């Protein structure tokens, strides 16, 4: 089974590194990446694509991760995880209280953190 992942992060290197990690872990996946959050919103508004999970950054130009969630009208169809470089405990507190978020993780994505994401998203995959 292939996991469908949506990545919204303006940092290309991060998106690429995440994909490399998944490959290295032997996970079959399909990813769609957006460097511009507004484009992601447009896409999600027009289409009704089904994803198994979404990785969302906080600090992005034009629209922050929080603003993205505010404007994401059809949220709740798939689990969304905040993946950020922020060390601000306030962000973590806010994420825990946000109804659209399933989890909060600090970059970089690791084998342990991704295992946790899969658990929270109820996805059964065997990692190598």
């Amino acid at each position, binding site marked *: 089974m292939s996991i469908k992942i949506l990545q919204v992060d303006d*940092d290309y*290197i*991060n998106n690429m*590194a*995440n994909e*490399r*990690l998944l490959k*290295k872990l032997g996970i079959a996946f399909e990813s769609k990446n957006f460097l511009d959050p507004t484009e992601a919103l447009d896409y999600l508004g027009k289409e009704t694509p089904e994803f198994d999970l979404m990785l969302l950054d*906080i*600090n992005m130009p034009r629209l922050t991760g929080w603003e993205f969630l505010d404007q994401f009208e059809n949220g709740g169809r798939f689990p969304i995880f905040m993946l*950020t*470089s*922020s*060390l*601000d*405990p306030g962000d973590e507190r806010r994420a825990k209280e946000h109804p659209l978020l399933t989890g909060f993780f*600090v*970059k*970089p*994505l*690791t084998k342990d953190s991704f295992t946790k994401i899969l658990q929270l998203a109820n996805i059964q995959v065997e990692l190598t």
Partner: protein
Amino acid sequence: MKSGSPDTPIFKSVSRALLLVEAMVFAFMVYQTEAKGNFFLLAILQTLLQLVIFALSKWQNKSWIEWLIPIPATSFLVLNWFSPVEITFAAYCISLVFYSFLLVRGEVLPLIYILSLILGSGISEYIKGVEVDVILLVIIPGMGFSFLFFTVLRSLQKTKNDLSLRNKELEESQLNYKTLIENTNSLIWSVDKDYCFLNGNTAFYLRYEFLTGKQLTPGTNLLTSLKKNSEKEFWKSIYDKALSGEQVTIEHESVSLSEKQLTWEYMLNPMKLPNGKIYGITIMAKDISKKRIFERRRQENEALLNGVLNNMPIGFQLFDQQGNLLLSNQAMKIILGIKKNENHEHRTFNVFHDSLLNSLGLNKVFADVYTHGIIKNLEMEFDFSVPENTWPTTRRKVFLEMNIFPLYNEEKQIIAVVCLSNEITRRKHTEKLMLDQNKRLEEYAFTISHILRRPIANIISLSSLIKPEDMKNEEDAQVAIFLNESTHQLDQILKELNQNITLKPDYFYEHKNTAG
């Protein structure tokens, strides 16, 4: 009705003699009543009216008209236009004129006239208290002399009664005077112009006996009975001052026999004869030692309060009911930077009419305190560089923490308002510095947390993808290991740094008991 006219010379002589007596009685009355213009005016008016009535009766030959004769006098009495004395006076006058008139004509007073006057006078007596006998005296020919006798007797009796009454009044007055001077703690006495004792109250007698050991009697020279020369000189000087006609009030300290310091207040008044000549002095002495002690204590308390006000580091201002500044302490002047100039030191203002206070809205704050009794606590920045400022200050800006509250009297009415001011300029400055610094720290934390950490996270992520075992040689493998470790160390340092910056200690808000 006419009673006829006896024509004998004896009758005429008697009549003339009686007329003379009546004239004397009238003159006596003028003297006694100190007759004024209105007395004569009334007499002339009534006489004229009665002459008119009498003439009318003769002219018409109708005697009933004579019954109208007493009407004017009675009417005046009833209408209260003139006093009984004035009416009586007028009656004498009328009688004299009539009696003369009748005598010249050789007529006797008509009986009806006599009856009507008696009746009229009776009514007057009943109404206003005019004496009937006085009127009878002047209207009945031949009876005037005997009535005069009775009147004199009566007058003597009256004088005796008056004297007895006045005696009684005098006794009462003396009793009152005695009660007045005895029911007091003050010493009261009088001396003549030779400083000899005339009279005094019991308190003075006792005091004198206590001080001198001698009994005081009228005529004792009070100066020579004094032992100390200084005391003699003192008393002579103030006695002489009073004897010169001056009212003297003086405070004098003396030591009692028990070595106690006493303060006396003496009031000396010259006694004068009706011709203005001074024949002695009355003296009243009050022991005001306790009053002086209280005054001294009050002054000490005031001085203490002023000391507290002027030495406390908080500015103090007191405003009256209208908002005028009554009192301001030294700290307030220092806080406001009032220039060391006498005019400025005593500068006053009204909280409702000061342009600087109005521009800051403080007039409304004071209005709340004055009108609703609200206690106000506020922080206020005074910028003296604005055009509205009229304060003569050396300072440019002052930040004050102000507590404004009303003072009430027993009827719960606001009688004054107090403003306590604490200067917080330095604290405010420090607060602003700290806020600026805090803001910069937050910006720094954000930079670390989001901007700097992003590439670090990427490096960690990327380095973790490089496996040492995939390296061509051992050295490269070692480099890969060190790169991985170093990036993790760098990330750890960043995390700790961020934690230190964003740490918000709670010890400032909550006291933790660390003792146990």
